[in-house]
């Protein structure tokens, strides 16, 4: 059966329809009632099915071309010349795969740990999945914005309903921060719409723009994406949101939602306002390096595991923006491609590692109901299997060669060497800092004597948790040892992007 013509629509709408189905099935208070079980099986089935469809995307994806693939184009609002315009290229396809890969794991992770309104919980994740895939597929500015904003609503509910103690503060901060960033992007879109007469992203890329317009548009985009990434100094919502969100929410937030910011830079900022990006590249690099170094130190001081991983996310995402904006500091052509590829690989890798780290904390939290490092110690004695996984993911987080964390960071560091020694020096500190804060946490949590009765009473991973962590561990190692398939997917698109960015639009 050939459904390649509507594959992207299937990927977007299948989970959303599935989410509505879950709401219709509903739940009752009994976790073991047949209704609850049907609902959860349906949730898992739909996310797995979506993943299967995304494998078809991978199979049929043509690595050789930089053009958009699986394109769907239908008129949506003819009066405003808005199109339902979808397509993927080497930048978006890996991120879609990441999304469809992580979501079933989140469903399994929340299988019976969610006691309050599980149907709404799973429905929110499914709808969120569809909307996130929509962001990565949309090639029409307005469609992009619709998915981009709509995505906030399920996440707002996930943190607010199923989150921790200060969840309301955290979720409002999350929503308002990201909303403020995005509305300015909307103004930029409408301005570009006024210039081109449609919301087509390719139209935006081809329209000539003056320097002032480019600078202003870049700032509008920067605010939207910097909040999402998040870059220093607009990162403060992230530690709050991560700490208060339920495990699944943290995983999705870290693994996929942060990638929206990076994706926005490569899909919109760089090609639409190349001269504006060139003008501000030094500024963005500075912010990225501050994130890498300063936030690394901040992470070192955290007492809360989730907060620590949240800060480590900010530091690692600094590599992504650094890689993207090195282009203008490098005179020869090869290094620029390396920086961008590195940034992209880092996004995928960080998605896997940070998701895994949050799941590890979730495993502990479900048992002890504390995220404080001080409440643990010697967990390896009672949970050997868990300890093995956590050590692996921590090594990956610290950028150990052979894990996915190494590949992206290494590429970006090499590229920054070509640009400026000090960039590379500062970026390189992450190898020390990352190792320091991650491994110090591991030492305090996993090793040493059994700290207290809670730790002594811990039970090792159950089958469900084992599967989730094992799948993630395999993928972290796979990307680390054999990144070629991932890099091959991106190559053609990134080459084209570099050409596009190199051309002035003035």
């Amino acid at each position, binding site marked *: 059966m050939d459904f390649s013509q509507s594959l992207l629509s299937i990927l977007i709408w299948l989970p959303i329809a599935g989410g509505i189905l879950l*709401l219709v099935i509903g739940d009752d208070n009994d976790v073991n009632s047949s209704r609850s079980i049907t609902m959860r099986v349906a949730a898992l089935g739909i996310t797995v099915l979506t993943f299967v469809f995304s494998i078809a995307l991978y199979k049929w994806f043509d690595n050789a071309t930089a053009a958009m693939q699986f394109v769907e184009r239908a008129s949506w*609002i003819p009066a405003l010349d808005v199109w339902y315009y979808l397509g993927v290229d080497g930048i978006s396809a890996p991120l879609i795969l990441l999304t469809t890969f992580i979501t079933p794991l989140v469903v399994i992770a929340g299988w019976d740990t969610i006691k309050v309104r599980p149907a709404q919980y799973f429905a929110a994740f499914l709808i969120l999945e569809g909307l996130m895939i929509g962001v990565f597929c949309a090639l029409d500015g307005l469609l992009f*914005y619709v998915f981009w904003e*709509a995505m906030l609503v399920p996440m707002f509910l996930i943190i607010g*309903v199923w989150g921790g103690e200060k969840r309301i503060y955290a979720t409002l901060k999350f*929503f308002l921060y990201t*909303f403020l960033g995005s*509305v300015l992007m909307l103004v930029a879109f409408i301005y570009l*719409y*006024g210039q081109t007469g449609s919301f087509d992203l390719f139209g935006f890329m081809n329209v000539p723009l003056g320097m002032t317009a480019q600078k202003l548009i870049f700032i509008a985009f920067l605010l939207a994406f910097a909040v999402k990434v998040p870059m220093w100094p607009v990162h403060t919502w992230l530690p709050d949101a991560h700490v208060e969100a339920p495990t699944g929410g943290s995983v999705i937030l870290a693994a996929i939602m942060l990638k929206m910011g990076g994706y926005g830079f490569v899909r919109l900022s760089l090609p639409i306002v190349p001269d504006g990006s060139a003008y501000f590249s030094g500024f963005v690099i500075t912010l990225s390096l501050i994130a890498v170094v300063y936030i690394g130190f901040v992470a070192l001081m955290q007492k809360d595991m989730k907060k620590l991983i949240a800060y480590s996310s900010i530091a690692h995402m600094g590599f992504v923006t650094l890689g993207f904006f090195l282009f203008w500091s490098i005179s020869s052509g090869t290094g620029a491609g390396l920086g961008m590829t590195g940034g992209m690989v880092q996004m995928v890798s960080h998605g896997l590692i940070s998701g895994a780290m949050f799941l590890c904390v979730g495993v502990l939290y479900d048992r002890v109901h504390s995220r404080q490092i001080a409440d643990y110690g010697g967990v390896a004695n009672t949970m050997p299997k868990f300890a093995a996984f956590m050590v692996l993911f921590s090594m990956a987080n610290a950028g150990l060669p052979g894990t996915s964390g190494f590949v992206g960071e290494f590429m970006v560091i090499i590229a920054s060497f070509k640009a400026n020694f000090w960039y590379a020096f500062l970026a390189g500190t992450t190898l020390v800092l990352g190792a320091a804060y991650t491994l110090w946490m591991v030492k305090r949590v996993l090793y040493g004597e059994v700290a207290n009765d809670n730790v002594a009473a811990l039970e090792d991973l159950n089958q469900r948790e084992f599967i989730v962590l094992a799948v993630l561990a395999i993928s972290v190692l796979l990307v680390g040892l054999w990144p070629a398939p991932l890099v091959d997917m991106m190559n053609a698109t990134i080459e084209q992007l570099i050409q596009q960015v190199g051309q002035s639009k003035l």
Partner: protein
Amino acid sequence: MNLTDYISAAPEITLLGLICVVLIADLFVDDEHRVMTFWMSIAALALTAWSLVATAPIERVVVFDGSYVSDPLSQVLKLTAVGFVAIAFLYARDYLRANDLHKGEYYLLGLFGLLGMMIMTSANSLLTMYLGLETLALSLYALVAIDRNNATAAESAMKYFVLGAIASGALLYGISWIYGVTGTLKFDEIATAIAANPDLNSLPLWFGLAFLIVGIAFKFGAVPFHMWLPDVYEGARTPVTLYIASAPKLAALAFTLRILVDGLGGLQDVWADMIMVVAVLSLLVGNVIAIAQTNIKRMLGYSAIAHVGFILLAIFCGTDKGYAAALFYTLTYVVATAGAFGIVILLSRRGFEAENLADFKGLNARSPWFALMMMFLMLSLTGIPPFIGFLGKLNVIDAVLSSGYAGLAVLMVIASVVGAFYYLRVIWYMYFEPREDQAVLQASTDTRLVLSLNGVAVLALGIVPGWLWTLCTQIALSMR
């Protein structure tokens, strides 16, 4: 005067006749069977809607010696107003019955108010406009005071009446200046007179214009003439608030467009500045003060002020795109606001007004479906896609940007972010807080159905908004 005149005004004539029938028939209905009046009113509305459709003009028709106009703008606004009055009646019925207020007056005053709105919408002369406005205003004053044993309601009715009288006085004063300068009351003749003699475009005319703008700002509830609005929204019984918050906004839009565009279009550069000041103040004051409210009716009142800021900014552009955006925004805003008050009514019951934000706590546990509907409505008012409120905002921002006011566009979106907080607070109370009120929601099937349709409509319209935007654009183009 000939037959065409009467055909063009047939909807108003039909409505007036039917009101008289309902008025008399209501005398013979006792309180137990008061629902008869409700159904008679609905029938009257249906017949009026039918006569609107049957007499729909293909193009602009000016009748009654130039004092009355029937055009696509008036048709659409009237039909929508009829629809919203019907929805208000339906939402109100159970509430009135439960609170021993189920008299014929609510429906009759509502119908008279509708008559006033229809006259305003079709007015082509300042005097016709004034007559329609007063018909509407007097009905509203009485509606606010309908619960005569309620001191708050009486107080807000008094406040509304006194301030309304001052605004009417200002309006009449402005009308007399315009008449004195141009020598006519009819909008098209005013426009011709100004075009023919540019010398008229000077201080005396501007002086009159300023008073007209005071009238417009008062009717819309724009800052600094908004003082009545929060008090009336809060003081009136919820079905009355619902009525005031929905259909009259459409009439106010017609009022503004007829005066400023049809009549004084030549003075656009003069009134644009005044409108902008009023609009920006409304946007800021409305959004900021709404944050501090704990009463949802009052909060929605301040939110209405903020939304009026958007509508006026669209008109401020002075372009066809701007007028279309204003129309689109008003139509879609009214859908969302009617639904929101519908939910407030739904949560109320005998002796209990669900008017505090805290009364929404845990609604998701009481009724997931209506919590979802309320969330849709709140998100639409915030301007989150894919709900229709987003496209309303998009069109206004587009109009403002294409007129070259990038600063205003940025101000508008930032005001929306400020506004997002108080809409999100409703969602927060519904979803994140535990249930406090154990009572079961009481509402009849038809109310539940229409309320659900209303909630789904903001989503459905947001997904297929093309036709509505096309319609609004066509109407804007047909105006001159």
